[in-house]
C-alpha cells in the first residue's frame, strides 16, 4: 500500500513538473525606468526614458517596451504628454509638446512621470523626475575667451546658480572636443564660468565657423542643459571631391585618359590585324575565282 502511494506521488509530481516549470517561466522581471530631461538652446525640451531590467545579475536594456509620459504630479489623462516605444538601446524619446505650456508655466519646479504597463516578461514600471527650470547662456569675449552662465528660476526670479559643473567644447562629428586641457568648469557665485579657447586650425565650415557648446550634463536639479554659439575661429574648409575626376576608382566613363588611350590602342591594334586577315580571306577568294 505504501509502495502504491509512492508511485502515485511520483506520477503526480511528474505530471505537475511542466506546470511548475512553466510557473517559473511566467515569473516577471522588474522594469526600471529612468527618466531624463533635456533642454537644448533654451528652446526645445525633451524627455528620454531608459528601460532596464536586471536579468541574470546584469542590467540589460529592454527594447520594444511601450511607455507613456506625463507632466505633473499624477499620471492623469489630461497630463499625458505622449507615448513611445523603447528602441534597441532601451530608450524612448519624447519632445515636450506646446500643449503642455500651461502646465509648464505653473511652477518653477516641474515633475514628470513615465509609466509602462509591462508585458508578458516584465512587470509594470514607473519613473519620476523633478527638475528646477534653468537656462544656459554662452558668449565669447576678446582673446578667444568663452563665457557661459547658468540661471535658475527660483520662485519667480531667474537667479544665477553657483557650483554647477559645465562642459565646454567644440562640436565635432556629433561629439564635443574640449577647448583646452580642462575637462569641466564649475560656476562661480554669478553662475558664470570662463574657458580659454586653445585649439588652433580646427577645420570649420566653408566660412571657418565652429560651433562652441556649453553643457550641464545629468545635473540632479536641472537635468541636461545645452547651449551653443557659432564663432569664426576655425580654418575655412573647402569641400573637394574626386567624384567627377578621372581615376581608376571612378565610375563608368571616367577612367583615366592614359588607361583609355592604352586600352583602345591595344584593342584597335589587335582588331586591325584581325580585320586585315579577314580581308586576306576575301583576297584569297578573289584569287580563286579569277
Amino acid at each position: 500500500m505504501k509502495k502504491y502511494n509512492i508511485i502515485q506521488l511520483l506520477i503526480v509530481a511528474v505530471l505537475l513538473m511542466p506546470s511548475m516549470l512553466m510557473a517559473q517561466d511566467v515569473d516577471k522581471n522588474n522594469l526600471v525606468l529612468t527618466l531624463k530631461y533635456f533642454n537644448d538652446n533654451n528652446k526645445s525640451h525633451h524627455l528620454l526614458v531608459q528601460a532596464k531590467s536586471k536579468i541574470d545579475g546584469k542590467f540589460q536594456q529592454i527594447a520594444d517596451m511601450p511607455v507613456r509620459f506625463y507632466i505633473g504630479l499624477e499620471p492623469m489623462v489630461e497630463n499625458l504628454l505622449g507615448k513611445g516605444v523603447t528602441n534597441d538601446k532601451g530608450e524612448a524619446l519624447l519632445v515636450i509638446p506646446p500643449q503642455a505650456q500651461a502646465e509648464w508655466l505653473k511652477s518653477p519646479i516641474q515633475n514628470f512621470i513615465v509609466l509602462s504597463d509591462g508585458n508578458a516578461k516584465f512587470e509594470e514600471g514607473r519613473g519620476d523626475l523633478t527638475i528646477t527650470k534653468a537656462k544656459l547662456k554662452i558668449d565669447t569675449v576678446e582673446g578667444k575667451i568663452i563665457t557661459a552662465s547658468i540661471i535658475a528660476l527660483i520662485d519667480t526670479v531667474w537667479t544665477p546658480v553657483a557650483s554647477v559643473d559645465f562642459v565646454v567644447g567644440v562640436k565635432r562629428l556629433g561629439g564635443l572636443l574640449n577647448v583646452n586641457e580642462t575637462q569641466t568648469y564649475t560656476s562661480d557665485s554669478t553662475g558664470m564660468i570662463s574657458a580659454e579657447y586653445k585649439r588652433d586650425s580646427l577645420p570649420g565650415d566653408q566660412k571657418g565657423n565652429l560651433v562652441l557648446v556649453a553643457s550641464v550634463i545629468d545635473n540632479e536639479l536641472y537635468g541636461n542643459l545645452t547651449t551653443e554659439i557659432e564663432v569664426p575661429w576655425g580654418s575655412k574648409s573647402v569641400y573637394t571631391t574626386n567624384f567627377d575626376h578621372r581615376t581608376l576608382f571612378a565610375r563608368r566613363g571616367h577612367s583615366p585618359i592614359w588607361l583609355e588611350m592604352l586600352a583602345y590602342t591595344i584593342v584597335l591594334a589587335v582588331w586591325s590585324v584581325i580585320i586585315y586577315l579577314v580581308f586576306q580571306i576575301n583576297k584569297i577568294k578573289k584569287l580563286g575565282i579569277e
Partner: protein
Amino acid sequence: MEKIAENKIIEDLMPQQFGKKGMIWVISLLVVCVFGFYAYCRQLYYGLEVTALRDYVSWGIYISNFVFFVAISLVGSLITAVLRLTNVHWSTPLTRIAEIIAVSAIAFASLIIIVDMGRPDRFYNLFIHGRLQSPIIWDVIVISTYLVISLLLLYFPLLPDLKIMIQYKERNGKWLQKLYVFLGSFWKDKPAQFKITTKAIHILSITIIPVAFAIHTVTSWLFATTYRPGWDSTNFGAYFISGAFLVGAGSVLIAMYIFRTQYKLEKYITSEHFNKMGKVVVLLALIYLYFNINEFLVPAFKMKKSEEEHLMGLFTGEFSYIFWFAISASMFLPILILVFKKGRTPKWAFVAGILVVVGSWFKRYLIVTPTLLHPFLPMHDVPKNYMHYFPSWEEWAIAGGSLAGALLVITFFARIFPIIPIHETITETDTHEKV
C-alpha cells in the same frame, strides 16, 4: 612525292565516320549535356538558389570551370604559335588538335561565365554599364578577341585541306560536301593563295601570343586585383600562365593518344611525338611547380594572420586532401612519369596527361573557393551552410555538361575535318624525302 603515297596520306587522314565506340562516346556526351541543360533550366527558373553559392562563396565550380577552360585554351598558342615560330616541325600533326581544343575551351569559358551570372538576360548590362577600369571588361574583350584569332588560326591552315576533301564528294555525303564547298571552294592551290595564307598564319602566330598571355593575365587579375587572402599576390599573372601552359599540354597528350588509337594514326602521331610532348610537359610542370612554391611558400613563411587560416586550410585543413591531390596529380606525378624515357611512351604519357588535366581542374577549384571562405572579417550571424561550400547537383550537372560540350565540339570537329593537317603533312613528307 609519288601519287600513291600522297593518296595514302589523304586516305589515312580524311575524317572518318563514327564507329560503335564513337557512337557510344557521342551519345554519352550528349546525355551529359542534356542533363546539364536540364539543370541549367532549373537554375534559370528557380534562380541561383538551386546552387550552393551563397553570400561568401559567390564563385564556385562555375568560375573554377571558367578558369580551367581559359587555362586549357592556351594550348593553341603554345603548339601552334610558339612551336611554329620557333621552327619546330615535329608539332605539325598536333597543331589542329591544339587549335580545336583552344577554340572549344574558350567558347565554353564564355558560356560558363553567362551560366554563373544567374540572370543571363542582364548580360547586356556588362556592355552598357561596364567600366573600362574593371578587369571583368578586359576579360570580355580579350576572350572574344582570342576566340576570333583562334578561329582564324584554325581556318587558314584548313583551306588547302578543304580543297582535298571537296574532291571526295561521294565519300563526304551531301551536307558535308556543302559545308566544304561553302568554306573552301575558292581554294585553288595557287602560289599567290599559299603566299597570303602563309603570311596570315605567321601574323596570327605572332598576334596570338600576346593575346593569349593577356587572357590569362587578365583572368588572374580578376582575383589578384582584390584584397583577399590567397588572391592578393603579385605572382598571379605568371602563375596562371605557367599553369595554363601545363594543363593545355596535358590535354594535348590525352587528345594525341585518343586520336592516335581511335583513328589509327600511329604513323602520324608517333611515339616520338609523345616523347617530345612528354619533355615539354615535364618542363612546364617544373615551371608551374616553381610558381607554386613562390605562391605558397613565401606567404607561409610570413604566415600573416589574415593568410594563416586560408593557408592552413589548404595545407592541413578542410581543403588539404584536394590540395595535395592537385599538387601531386598536376605536377609531381606527371614529372615522375615523364622524366624517364620509359614514361614517355604513348600509354604512360596518356596517363600523365589525365593526371595533369584532372589535377589542374581541382587546382582551379582551390584557387577560387577557399579564399572566399576566409574573409578578413569573421563570419557572424550567418546560416551554417554559408560557412562551407559543396556544389549542388545542379552545379555538378552544369559543370559536367560544359565539359562534355567542349569534348563534343572537339569530337564533331574531328568527324567533319581532318584532325591532322593533310596538306601540311604531304608537304613536309615531300620535303623530308627530298632532303
